């Protein structure tokens, strides 16, 4: 029998982690699923790769900041070889003078450090965190389930709305008013009202802007902070790093699917979604003409590519075409992965803090400048960075005593003035110089390195525009608006087509949640369910 004659229950387009999570849930429920991935490797932006022989790093995404343990348990990922190397990573805001900050400041020692930098901030920190956690708590239940389809599932929607209103009421007058000021505000406004230490403010602002087309002064960035907190809380509140690097996660998911009745097929780029005359999905066609049939198709691609490129606007209502036309996918980033001859020495950094998530962002002004530079298609004078040492968590990532360093650079323009080819080296030099301010021996220890510019990230991981989230996570593109009325699941014009990537609710990051919710939606029978 030829393989395309096989009948599948469902086809998943794209083997990013969300596509794989969706497929894994379906496979666990006994469905025959086929996952089709354009690239030669699964994972999308979540892959582990060699920088140089024997030096491994998470090539794209490099940190699980909101990966829910619930999914690990549901899918019994440990059975399929998935293991976390570290489950409790802290954030370390690096300071040029060695007075680093550790967040969340929960231990007495960490609070002492805060106090050392600013006694006032140390006092304000606790109440601030409690307050933002209350806001995140309000949002969290909305992220944990699929959002109602307008007009249908009205009962559930009403219950959810009532529960939301009840929780909102319960917050108390002061909190409510403050939330009203908070949501549209910029993170800089919020932080400037509360704290004085530039380093602390920058570290908190990082969580509001990382991966977004926003600087700390952008209106709406405070909302991003709450959103990320809520995502983190769903995941258990801790950041972690998998054994074998980020790529181990999709690999384990793919194994699970392979061991069921499902199948993951790489080098299989989907060109079209097939639709029957009666307006139902029938399957897909690959670029090489191979056809696969299934009554249900889940796409982990962003809404624009799914609907406009693969389905075709002819199947959409004009309202939907317009909505997709206005879909913003910005916020390009770059990656630099380094192989090092030893651990870089950073003054004032304690041993365990080498396993943290380092931030290089001295103050919010530098962050804002980097964002503004990116908007103008320029490189930041002072690059902003998030750094992880994969080899610290996973000794197999480098030869004994040696290390790898993964540097994520937000606010890097996709269309750089003068072109990336001409300015790659300049960019790399700027970044390494900036790291050297904190780790002066880095240049001596450098053995090899790779740089992934935004266009390269786009090519290598299949991420359009090198954005994080398949669509900005602003208020107008989250919750019910992700991606929008009649587009989210199969409540649109074509029955049987579901979105399961980070372009759908509850959005981006390595959370697997869009995939999990889409699978739940399919298993509940689609349409009529919430």
């Amino acid at each position: 029998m030829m393989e395309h004659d096989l009948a599948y229950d469902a086809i998943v387009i794209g083997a990013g982690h969300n596509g794989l999570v969706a497929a894994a849930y379906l496979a666990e429920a006994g469905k025959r699923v086929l996952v089709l991935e354009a690239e030669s490797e699964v994972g999308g932006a979540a892959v582990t790769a060699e920088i140089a022989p024997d030096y491994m790093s998470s090539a794209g995404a490099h940190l699980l900041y909101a990966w829910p343990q619930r999914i690990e348990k549901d899918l019994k990922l440990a059975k399929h070889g998935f293991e976390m190397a570290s489950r409790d990573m802290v954030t370390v805001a690096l300071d040029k003078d060695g007075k680093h900050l550790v967040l969340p400041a929960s231990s007495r020692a960490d609070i002492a450090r805060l106090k050392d930098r600013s006694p006032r901030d140390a006092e304000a920190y606790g109440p601030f965190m409690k307050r933002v956690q209350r806001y995140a708590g309000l949002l969290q239940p909305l992220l944990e389930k699929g959002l109602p389809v307008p007009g249908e599932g009205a009962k559930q929607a009403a219950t959810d709305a009532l529960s939301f209103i009840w929780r909102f009421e319960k917050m108390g007058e002061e909190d409510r008013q403050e939330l009203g000021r908070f949501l549209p505000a910029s993170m800089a406004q919020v932080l400037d009202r509360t704290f004085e230490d530039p380093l602390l403010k920058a570290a908190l602002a990082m969580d509001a802007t990382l991966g977004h087309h926003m600087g700390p002064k952008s209106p709406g960035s405070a909302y991003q902070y709450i959103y990320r907190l809520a995502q983190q809380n769903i995941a258990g509140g801790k950041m972690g790093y998998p054994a074998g690097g980020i790529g181990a996660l999709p690999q384990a998911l793919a194994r699970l699917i392979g061991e069921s009745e499902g199948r993951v097929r790489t080098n299989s780029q989907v060109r079209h979604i097939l639709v029957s005359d009666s307006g139902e999905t029938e399957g897909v066609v690959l670029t090489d003409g191979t056809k696969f049939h299934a009554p249900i198709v889940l796409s982990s691609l962003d809404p624009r590519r799914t609907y406009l490129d693969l389905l075709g606007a002819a199947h959409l209502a004009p309202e939907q075409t317009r909505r997709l036309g206005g879909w913003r996918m910005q916020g390009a980033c770059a990656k630099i992965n380094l192989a090092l001859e030893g651990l870089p020495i950073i003054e004032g950094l304690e041993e365990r803090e080498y396993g943290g998530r380092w931030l290089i962002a001295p103050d919010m002004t530098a962050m804002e400048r980097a964002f503004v530079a990116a908007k103008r298609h320029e490189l930041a004078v002072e690059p902003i960075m998030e750094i992880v040492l994969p080899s610290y968590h996973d000794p197999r990532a480098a030869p004994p005593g040696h290390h790898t360093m993964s540097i994520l650079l937000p606010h890097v323009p996709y269309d750089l003035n003068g072109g990336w080819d001409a300015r790659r080296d300049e960019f790399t030099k700027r970044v390494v110089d900036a790291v050297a301010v904190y780790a002066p021996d880095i240049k001596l220890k450098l053995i090899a390195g790779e740089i992934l510019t935004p266009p390269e990230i786009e090519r290598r991981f299949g991420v359009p525009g090198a954005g994080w989230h398949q669509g900005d996570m602003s208020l107008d593109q989250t919750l019910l608006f992700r991606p929008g009325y009649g587009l989210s699941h199969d409540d649109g014009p074509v029955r049987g087509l579901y979105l399961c990537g980070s372009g759908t609710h509850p959005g981006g990051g390595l959370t697997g949640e869009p995939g999990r919710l889409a699978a739940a939606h399919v298993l509940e029978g689609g349409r009529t369910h919430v």
Partner: protein
Amino acid sequence: MSNILVRPDFENEHRNEALEKYDAPRADLFEAGRDVLPFEMQAEPTCLHSFAAMSCRTNEWASWNGYTTPQTYVSLASEYEALHAQAALADMSWLTKYRISGPQAEEFLQKLVTRNVTALPVHGAARVFFCDMGGKIVGEGVLFRLEEEDYRLTVEGNHLDWLDATAEGFNCAVEDISGTLGCIALSGPQAASIARQRFGDAVAGLPAGRALWAELHAAPVYISRTGSLGQEGFEIWVDAEDAPVIWGSLLRHHKEMLRPAGLAACELRRLERGIARFGRDYFGAECAVDPDAARTPYELGAGACVDLEKGPFNGRAALAKAKEKGAQWSLVALEVSGGEPARFAAVYCGDDRAGSATSIGWSPVLCANIALATIRTETLAADEGFNVHAEIPGEVTVRRARLPAKIARRPLF
């Protein structure tokens, strides 16, 4: 007979203020009904502007669909008379016109409009509606098929953005050609005979909803047996540069039985024909702030323009549901008793509010107040009669009266 033009600007000390606010918005036929935003105020001249101006003795102009057009040329009475007894020419060049062409023009239109477009022959024309996902009308107009893959859609309002969004993914082009094309309506009992003399027998014998190419003074003209506003007669489509020649020639050669008619007379004639007008009797789904001001074709009584069986199109699912549920609102024609022109908006069924009149006017031929009104469908079945709270302007004072009204068959005349 000038009193068929009911003026809104009278004062009345007996007026109930509260009732006034609710009951009397935009009820007057010739009133620019709503507040106009500054950027909407600009009005372009049509290609016939200077010729129309030469005949426009009253110098009364209306701004319509973004263009200026004479309200009356000489007097409403004489123009109304011409439309009824002889023939009249009207400048309709202010219509918005889109050209839709390309290999997938038909597929695109099939998705856009609620009617089955494949059934439309070359040189055919039909009334079409286009609806949003909720089945509410976004716009309506007349669709012409000029060639196998070349269509023209004439509408009121600007719908290019909507058309573009719908055209996404189809191999066809949508262009706004409003400025390049003039439109002259030739209507009235003598219209056919004038058409025969000027354009030949073929034109005079055109059946409704058909069109053909002809020539006048070496200018190609496309003549259709249509009335965008429901007037019986012909529409002459001609290049904007040639339009004045055709206009002038027709008026010159048929002086005795043809005169230009302004918007006021045409509108009154439309009302007599019982034709609802987009933007007056209902709002487009995209511009209605109150969703209740938008309508489905069923609510306009235009269910015949919806073909649910033809395959997918915008709003099909919602329209199928709407059809099953039955129209909540019905657009009806009303004839109101009382032998003099009156002004009214609220329509009652017994003592209960049933709906609103959206176009009103005094029809001299019927010697009655007539109106188009949108009323709750359930009141149609009620035993009680309809009535309106009317204001009847006298010379200096205004009387209030409750006048009985009855649903009239369309066309009223």
